[in-house]
């Protein structure tokens, strides 16, 4: 017995490669058996892959292809123009405007959406009677379609019949051109978007808050930490994965806001709300210029991809996972 132990200790210098060379047993599994996982993975992923290929990847590739062409009235690529669609875009003031507007829109909507939702979630996380009702109300916009929401706001923004201007004039403030003034229009669309986003963000943040261990607060309270100290030192760090998720999703959604722009402003006035996504839609479905539209779509995809990657690279570092 002791002898055996000694033998084993003598093999101290054995490397993995040595062990494999010396004792590796040729597998009797057939190729078919070895690829079992691949096959099952392929089988299970097939529906998704197929659908993604047909409805996501193929269109993107097709868009890429179209972006080097002009298209005729039937929408088929008819004249190869090389990089012209791209160079034209970069020279075009309208496109630069769209980019600027989009960035501004993201800036308007993302932080405020998240902050408002966080505020509501903090409020609704208190243990009070009837809190369920408040939660349902705060979450309600998740159940609102873009079409319905935008139509309601469209009417509220109505220059003369709208309730917002009625409220303003009733307290002797001048009526606003919510959707007709260049600077105001983007703000108005942003308000609508924030309102629409709130329900979803609120629900997720509330869920995140409820997952935070109650003991953390108890021990902080014993230490005498005040509400805002706890908020800063416990809630926000513990909520950071949820916040990160919400920021990413809101960010992507913000880039893709379409319905509310279509219904509220149609990209106007003076292209002040012509977000890239809307500009793509107009170029493609109103002007029927699929080439330039596709070029914009490709640029948008690239930009969102880049920004999201950057966000993951820099944002995720600050995230505190449990």
């Amino acid at each position, binding site marked *: *017995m*002791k002898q*055996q*132990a*000694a033998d*084993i*200790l003598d*093999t101290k210098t*054995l490397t*993995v*490669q040595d*062990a*494999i060379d*010396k*004792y*590796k*047993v040729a*597998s*009797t*599994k057939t190729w078919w*058996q070895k690829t079992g996982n691949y096959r099952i993975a392929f089988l299970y992923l097939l529906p998704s892959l197929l659908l993604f290929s047909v409805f996501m990847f193929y269109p993107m590739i097709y868009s890429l292809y179209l972006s080097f062409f002009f298209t005729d009235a039937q929408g088929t690529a008819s004249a190869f123009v090389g990089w012209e669609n791209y160079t034209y875009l970069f020279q075009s003031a309208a496109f630069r405007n769209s980019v600027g507007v989009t960035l501004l829109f993201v800036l308007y909507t993302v932080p405020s959406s998240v902050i408002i939702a966080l505020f509501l979630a903090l409020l609704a996380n208190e243990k009070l009677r009837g809190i369920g009702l408040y939660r349902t109300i705060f979450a309600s916009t998740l159940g609102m379609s873009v079409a319905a929401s935008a139509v309601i706001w469209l009417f509220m923004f109505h220059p003369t019949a709208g309730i917002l201007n009625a409220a303003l004039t009733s307290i002797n403030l001048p009526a606003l051109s919510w959707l007709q003034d260049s600077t105001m229009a983007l703000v108005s669309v942003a308000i609508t978007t924030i309102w629409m986003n709130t329900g979803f963000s609120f629900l997720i943040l509330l869920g995140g808050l409820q997952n935070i261990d109650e003991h953390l607060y108890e021990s902080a309270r014993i230490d005498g930490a005040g509400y805002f100290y706890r908020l800063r030192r416990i809630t926000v760090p513990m909520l950071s994965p949820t916040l990160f998720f919400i920021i990413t999703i809101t960010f992507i959604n913000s880039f893709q806001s379409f319905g509310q722009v279509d219904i509220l402003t149609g990209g106007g006035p003076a292209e002040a709300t012509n977000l890239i996504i809307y500009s793509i839609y107009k170029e493609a479905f109103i002007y029927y210029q699929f080439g330039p539209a596709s070029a914009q779509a490709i640029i948008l995809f690239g930009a969102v991809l880049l920004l999201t990657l950057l966000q993951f690279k820099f944002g995720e570092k600050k995230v505190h996972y449990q």
Partner: protein
Amino acid sequence: MEEGSVKLKHISKSYDKQTFAVKETSVDIQPGEFFVLVGPSGCGKSTMLRMIAGLEEITAGEIYIHGKSANDTPPSRRRISMVFQNYALYPHLTVEENILFGLKVRKVPKKEQLRLCLEATDMLGMTEFLKRKPRELSGGQRQRVALARAVVSQMPICLMDEPLSNLDAKLRGQMRTEIRQLQQKLGITMIYVTHDQVEAMTMGDRMMVLKDGEVQQIGKPLDIYNNPANEFVANFIGAPPMNITEAEVQRDGSLRVHHNNSLTLLPASSNMKMHLGVRPEHILLTKTQETDWELSVKISTVEILGNETLLTFEVGETLWKAKIPGQWHYEKGQVTTIHINKQHIHLFDGRTGKMLPESVGVARKPAAVQGGASI
């Protein structure tokens, strides 16, 4: 056929092709044997169990189950059952459904299923809980369900991965006995993973001590206890662990521990580095006929446990522990003399940690005490 046997031949496992998770292990486990894999966490014992179960691929080497090569046999065809550390009960199924889950998959006839289920739950005293969901059970009850599931499967080999680690100490003691009895009653081969040396000592027919993926020693619990192959095993098996101190080798081959009396042991060459080990229960406070070596030490702590007293004292740089029957009152800092029988001294090679085979029993020269004095 060797139904119920497991044979490992030069088994190695590496996840990254650089380091071993399990290194070159060979062992024969006999049918009906209770075999324990023991070692500290990360030593590769679970990996080995999972290789036996077929849940991990084997990097090199061969495995034979029931006498047949099983390297490529999927878990379900190895005719084994397995009990997991967290019991792996399906939370959405009742106790009964959990127990019968495997049988249903194997399309065992309904009547047979019920019979086996009742038999198993009867054996484990779980019959009244059949309709409950796992979350309505206590830890011990869940453990029993997991056992029952293994029992009904009627597999000749049962693998257990730290099944008792989530239970409290008292329950653990009870379950140890039950599992052991169950295994003997069913006559199945049991391969049992634990980090708890007490379980290993009390339950196993044989055990394998592992460290860093390498086998340290294989053998019957008492053999290993009495003849640990190296310092690690000596230290790991037994509680409190064996006291080990560096010993100075004098020119004449005798040993000295921290300016204390030297001890003549032969043969030992003067250029050798040596470690000396003695189990706590082999330290006596009074000189007897048996004892033939004494050391003067300073008490640092006294723990009176009722039926025995744990003394800690400084021996050179290291702290030794002694387990003395009865209740003893000492002051901290008090100097006293301890007595040891040389037969109980283990010597280890200071470089490799290997036990020096001749250390015990060979150099048993009577009362080879030189110089020094008692208190």
